[in-house]
């Protein structure tokens, strides 16, 4: 008996590594501290009522952002561990097995559990406000999307201390990810964690397409929408086409591993190459899914901080849509070297190069928007300005990689690592930071400290170049990706050490950001205007933080940059908007079902990962029960009385 318990525990918990013991202890302490604090301040009820059961898009957005920043920390620590290992030749900081696990989880976490939720956070915080709506189309579904993402992410993160992390790379190519070569449960954590959060992402895509197409304020024609809304639409359309492919691909891999199917195995007639095709048919659009909203954010910021209308609005829209469609015709460039017909390679090389054109159009549009504008250099604008050169270099090296003969040299080298970090950090991360800085006052009602923000910006930015520029040269020198150590004779030492220093500088930048938030909360400077940047779009017309119902009266939006035009008219003394009476506002009711259902998914996933059907089957029954209960719920909605609305408006606008 005791022996079998010992045997089970040694498989269940990851043992034998001081770093992991450290993680276990710190996770344990954090949990205890969290539970103790909540109990001491009697906050459990508050947590349940105000956050867990909320369907308010702004609160869901905030939770997405918090989760994403936590994941940025985890993924960042992974990165620093790897850079420490690579700082000097023959380092014995991480074992090769541990190194494999860390680069796998770093990739998955940064793309799926950091970039995606940060993006969805911004969708939620901004889109309804920008289109003059009171909520998203399906608030209940929105809450479900968030909780599914969080449960998926937690399941994936759990693998670090329970059962062992996946180690087959961030896209888990078979046959390496098959049972024969990855017998531990790590790969199953990968399948289930991503699958569960992927369903959430798909539903978010559907939700925002309907929201944008159906819930715009009166007068807001498609070609008058703010550019961020356009970028969200483009990204959401790409999501609904790409994510079902991921769902199927991971399901097939799961069937292979759990039920002995032969889709991608080397025996039984399976075809590993098919997995690689499928995963990149999702994976390549995925990088555009995360970059397109960043393009929208830059468009908003450039226009606001240059006090000029966005240059080339129509060409921007066209570029967004072109990128979102073309992204589906480039997947094979990820395996040029795997023995494809030359004509196929030529086709995919050309489609890949084509994407540079609309992207170039956008860069020029931003530059022309700034041209002769009255530019101010607050933090959101700084991140935008930092992005442009970074993305241009990243884009150019991308075109270099798309040239098939050259790719045979660069393939799987550090050149590639440098390229995609340059576009994903310089494009996506900088973009989402810019957006977060830009909309922060609208969401939280206070502005962030500019001085610390600038420190954060410069350490991040300089650290970025110090970290990744050397990697291009390491790649050209023949250092391959996923190398866990190297000898003195290779001559890679100086560049690797420089790169590691840069990595730590970026870590310092993150600390500045956390400090900045803490400092700004402590010395809160309330945003009383509701419009701290002198903004152009509708979200700046309401007080900060945006009230529960967003707009007391649904605005009319007849022009592009409706709020800017309105401010101009007001300055000229023209009154166009007649004071409309405030009516009771219809709101969707809170619900605990999304949370409970997601917990059931978590239980199901955990059960399947360990092959515990006694756990998985009740989980599945719980999911079905939640769906039925929701289906039978008919009147979960309420009205905010007009009096309350008037009172809230007066308080927020400081007239009371």
């Amino acid at each position, binding site marked *: 008996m005791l022996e079998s318990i010992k045997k089970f525990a040694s498989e269940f918990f990851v043992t034998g590594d001081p770093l992991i013991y450290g993680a276990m202890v710190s996770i344990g302490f954090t949990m205890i501290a969290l539970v103790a604090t909540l109990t001491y301040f009697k906050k459990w009820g508050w947590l349940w009522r105000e956050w867990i059961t909320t369907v308010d898009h702004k609160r869901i957005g905030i939770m997405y952002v918090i989760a994403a920043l936590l994941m940025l920390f985890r993924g960042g620590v992974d990165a620093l561990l790897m850079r420490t290992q690579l700082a000097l030749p023959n380092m014995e900081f991480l074992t090769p097995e541990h190194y494999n696990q860390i680069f796998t989880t770093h990739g998955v976490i940064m793309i799926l559990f950091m970039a995606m939720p940060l993006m969805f956070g911004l969708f939620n915080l901004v889109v309804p406000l920008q289109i003059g709506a009171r909520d998203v189309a399906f608030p209940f579904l929105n809450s479900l999307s968030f909780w599914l993402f969080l449960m998926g992410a937690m399941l994936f993160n759990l693998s670090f201390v329970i059962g062992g992390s996946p180690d087959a790379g961030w896209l888990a190519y078979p046959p390496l990810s098959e049972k024969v070569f990855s017998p531990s449960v790590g790969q199953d954590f990968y399948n289930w964690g991503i699958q569960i959060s992927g369903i959430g992402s798909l539903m978010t895509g559907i939700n925002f397409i309907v929201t944008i*197409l159906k819930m715009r304020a009166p007068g807001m024609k498609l070609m008058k929408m703010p550019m961020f809304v356009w970028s969200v639409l483009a990204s959401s359309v790409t999501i609904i*086409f790409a994510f079902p492919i991921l769902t199927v691909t991971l399901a097939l891999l799961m*069937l292979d591993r759990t*039920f002995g199917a032969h*889709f991608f195995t080397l025996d*039984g*007639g399976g075809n590993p190459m098919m997995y690689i095709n499928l995963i990149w048919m999702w994976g390549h659009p995925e990088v555009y899914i995360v970059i397109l909203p960043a393009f929208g954010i830059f468009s908003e910021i450039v226009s606001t901080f240059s006090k000029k209308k966005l240059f080339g609005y129509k060409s921007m829209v066209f570029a967004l849509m072109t990128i979102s469609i073309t992204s589906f015709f480039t997947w094979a460039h990820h395996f040029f070297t795997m023995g494809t017909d030359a004509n196929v390679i030529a086709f995919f090389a050309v489609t890949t190069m084509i994407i540079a054109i609309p992207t170039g159009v956008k860069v020029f549009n931003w530059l022309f928007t700034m041209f002769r504008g009255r530019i101010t250099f607050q933090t959101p604008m700084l991140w935008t300005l930092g992005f442009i050169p970074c993305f241009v270099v990243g884009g150019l090296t991308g075109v270099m990689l798309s040239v098939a003969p050259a790719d045979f040299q660069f393939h799987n080298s550090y050149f590639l690592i440098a390229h995609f970090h340059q576009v994903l950090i310089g494009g996506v991360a900088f973009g989402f930071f810019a957006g977060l800085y830009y909309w922060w006052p609208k969401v939280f009602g206070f502005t962030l400290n500019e001085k610390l923000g600038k420190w954060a910006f410069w350490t991040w930015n300089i650290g970025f170049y110090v970290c990744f520029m050397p990697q291009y040269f390491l790649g050209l020198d023949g250092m391959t990706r996923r190398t866990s150590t190297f000898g003195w004779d290779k001559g890679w030492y100086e560049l690797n050490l420089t790169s590691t220093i840069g990595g730590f500088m970026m870590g310092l930048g993150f600390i500045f950001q956390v400090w900045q938030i803490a400092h700004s909360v402590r010395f809160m400077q309330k945003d009383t205007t509701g419009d701290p940047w002198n903004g152009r779009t509708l979200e700046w017309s309401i007080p900060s933080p945006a009230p529960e119902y967003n707009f007391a009266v649904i605005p009319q939006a007849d022009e592009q940059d409706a709020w800017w035009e309105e401010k101009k008219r007001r300055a000229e003394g023209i009154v166009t908007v007649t004071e409309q009476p405030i009516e009771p*506002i219809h709101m969707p009711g809170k619900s605990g079902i999304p949370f409970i259902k997601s917990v059931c998914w978590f239980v199901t996933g955990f059960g399947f990962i360990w092959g515990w059907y006694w756990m998985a089957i009740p989980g599945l029954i719980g999911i079905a029960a939640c769906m039925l209960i929701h289906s039978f719920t008919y*009147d979960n909605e309420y009205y905010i009385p007009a009096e309350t609305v008037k009172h809230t408006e007066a308080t927020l606008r400081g007239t009371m």
Partner: protein
Amino acid sequence: MANSLNHEMMNEHQHGHDGHHDQEELRQFGFWIFLMTDVILFSVLFATYIVLSGSTNGGPGTELFELNGIIISTFVLLTSSFTSGLAVLAMHQGKKNALINWLIVTALLGATFITLEVTEFMTLVHEGATIGTSAFWSAFFTLVGTHGLHVSIGLVWMVALMFQIKKYGINPVTIRKVNIVSLYWHFLDVVWIFVFTIVYLMGVM
């Protein structure tokens, strides 16, 4: 209770554009988009099946298919699609009982289809074709099984809906739900036609 609710919903329907939008219309539109994602899901499964259709690994292949049984289940499913149409028709005429009855007929036909499918799967397993036999059978069971899973979910949903119609009658919410279930059911029918053609007809040829 049901009446006041009904009244409230009708009210909401009338002035649905003063700020909040017509929820039922939104949901129906959202469901169309969901179906598009389901089309992609099935497309990927079909593509997988086509790629792996020759990979029997020396084991049994399409010769195990019993076309007669499949034709019967195809007929059953197509009929159920027709009866679900009759249910929607009855709903538009305001005939609550006819609506429920047609839904019951549809669900019974759907259940028959599932029973036939399970029987087919059991026969195949008995003859030595399981999901682990070869890549071909993995793809077969996954594609056909995913369709079957969709049908089963539709069945549970339809039964739940019958109780709701019984309780709340025909109102904007139940109208939307019936419309969506029937849309879903027709969609599964279309997918089945592809399964029938690509898996069974082309397999036997």
